[in-house]
């Protein structure tokens, strides 16, 4: 073996080694990134702040409101306070009057309050609505599909959705009047 040949062989070996290691490391890096990204996206398909609020269409059961159905996409360009509640749940009952007191004013300002009910019978809901004279729409989620699509665990759960249909805030648990108003301020349409 001449010196040049040896040198060339050495160079080749070196290059091959570098290529091999680079390929293996690149493959592993791709696998790691894939794992992390898919995990991250899993959280993304979850309902979270910044994600688009899933559309739904439900029967509206509040007799004080003239809507037959509620379809979320009809409220594009308006802010929506989407509340999930039930008559058996104490904190839900507590915040209903607050929501009612804010409703007329904010409806004028372009924010709709929608309270999706999760009870199993309309009767109890009717009784409750009449007791508190609620006027905002109450869609009735009889087969819990909308609850499922919003991944609501405990109620009350409230989503504040901006005019572009993005979730701006998610609140689990009851809220005070001031808190609700503060959140409503965040989803006012541009004047």
């Amino acid at each position, binding site marked *: 073996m001449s010196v040049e040949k040896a040198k060339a062989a050495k160079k080749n070996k070196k290059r091959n080694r570098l290529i091999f290691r680079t390929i293996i490391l690149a493959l592993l890096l791709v*696998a790691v990134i894939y794992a992390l990204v898919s995990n991250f996206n899993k959280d993304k398909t979850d309902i979270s702040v910044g994600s688009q609020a899933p*559309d739904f269409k439900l029967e509206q059961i509040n007799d004080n409101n003239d809507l037959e159905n509620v379809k979320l996409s009809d409220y594009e360009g308006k802010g929506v306070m989407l509340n999930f509640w039930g008559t*058996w749940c104490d904190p839900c009952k507590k915040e209903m009057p607050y929501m009612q007191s804010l409703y007329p004013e904010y409806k004028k300002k372009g924010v709709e309050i929608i309270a999706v009910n999760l009870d*199993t*019978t309309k*009767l*109890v809901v009717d009784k409750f609505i009449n007791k508190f004279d609620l006027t905002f729409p109450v869609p009735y989620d009889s087969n819990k599909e909308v609850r499922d699509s919003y991944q609501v665990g405990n109620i009350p759960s409230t989503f504040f959705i901006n005019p572009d249909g993005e979730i701006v805030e998610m609140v*689990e648990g009851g809220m005070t009047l001031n808190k609700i108003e503060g959140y409503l301020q965040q989803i006012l349409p541009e004047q």
Partner: protein
Amino acid sequence: MNKIKCECGHVNPEGTVLCEACGKPVEGNQHIDGNDQRKLLNMRYDGSARRSQTYNKSIVDKIWNFFSSVKVGVWLIVLALIASAIGTIFPQEQYIPADATSRAPSVFYEAQYGTIGQIYYQLGFHNLYGSWWYMLLIALIGVSLVICSIDRFVPLYKALRMQKPKRHTTFLKRQRLFSETEQVSADEKEKLVSGLKKQRYKVWEENGHVLAEKGRFSRWGPYVNHIGLILVLIAALLRMTTFMYIDDYVWVREGEQTVIPGTEGEYYIKNKDFILETYDENDERFKEAINKQGNVAKNYQTNAIIYKKKGDNVAGADPELEKVTEEKIRMNHPLKFDGYTLYQAGYQQNEFKSMTFKVHETDDPKETSLGSFTIDLTEPKDKYQLDDGFSVDVTQYYPDYELEEDEPASETPYPRNPAFVFTVHPPENEEPETSFVGIGKNIDATGENDYKLGIENFDTRYVSGLTVRRDYTLPLFIIGAAIFMIGVIQGMYWQHRRIWLHPKEEGIMVAGHTNKNWFGLKKDIEQVIADTNVNMVDDQLETD
């Protein structure tokens, strides 16, 4: 790259500790495998050049060398273990107790455990297996496994392929099993070789020098095992994706239909009937046990229909459904459809489905019915008209009645303990009367009611609980675990044994090496040298 030419003529790659062909220790590289100043050679990886110990030039090499260190691998595993241990201190997110003040993790941990809880939450320990850094740690363990394996398997494979029967005397003398015999006849040398063959050694000869070897494939055990482990890791990573893995739970009442969670609103289940069968207490075989134990369930079964949503309606809009299948889901006999599996996992009983009330006069001891009405609790009405001119208004309904701070309330939306406030309108425009009726309760608010309501009859129904699963990663887990096990068995139950015979003038040198079970190797050598005057090998470890 400096090749090292050994005196036997073989050219070794840089970093070689023992010549690949003849085993002679390479000058100046003895520190790499700790052969310095020791009588016995360290035979790890057969003294081959582990490249990572040698080249450390480019950034790629540096990363490679970092991961190829077993020390780093062990540290990564230790870190993962510590993290897993810390993850058990407070409950994971999905196990936050249902009665917690708030189940939102951002609130719960701080409220329950103070600052430490807050830190725990912010570092992602509340959802450990889904936290990015824990996943990264597991992924790095995977990387370390791959690179450690490549970096050791390749040189070892080469060294074992390159080895020549003729070994350097230094190599032989510094093996753990070694003996030298001054006078050995050619016949006896022949005998040794045939003895080795009889012991099922593969024998290579090269002008009198002999290498006998068996069980080399046992050396690949760890690498096979690592391939299995890597497959298991990949399966675990795939489990992170909802496409590959879903685990959910659904309650469905008899006669009701509900969306199956985890199917993105695509599938619905209808519970036609739930069946709970118990063993017959009069059966001689079970009598004793049942007396001791109470009733024992024999079968839990849901007769279910699965529907699939047609088209792409929005959630909640009346979906158009088509039937997929109708099946009996029994304990240990799950229902499989379109990749999903439904397991019978629980039930609730004593939920009321309907109740029948009758009206009678308060002071009638016989409680003769003046008319009755039935309330369907899935859809109670406002008003019930009775036959005899009575009508009853449902003024309040509490599906699951309890007193909360002296206020009647419903604990859940499910009719487990129904209670009503009825307003009875007797015929002929008598004054309406109000009374409160529930299970075991019948309260007359004024104490002056002429009429009373009583429960005449009721119907209960079951609620069936089903686990929803979709797991495409299982086959990969099984394959990975099987390969892992094959690797373990390969490395555990076979040993790599080598015996070298080195003729020397009139005599012979015998040396032996194995990666485990030295006793077995000595036994082999004993058998081979029986009836010859070759000296038995010394175990030099004991005399070291």
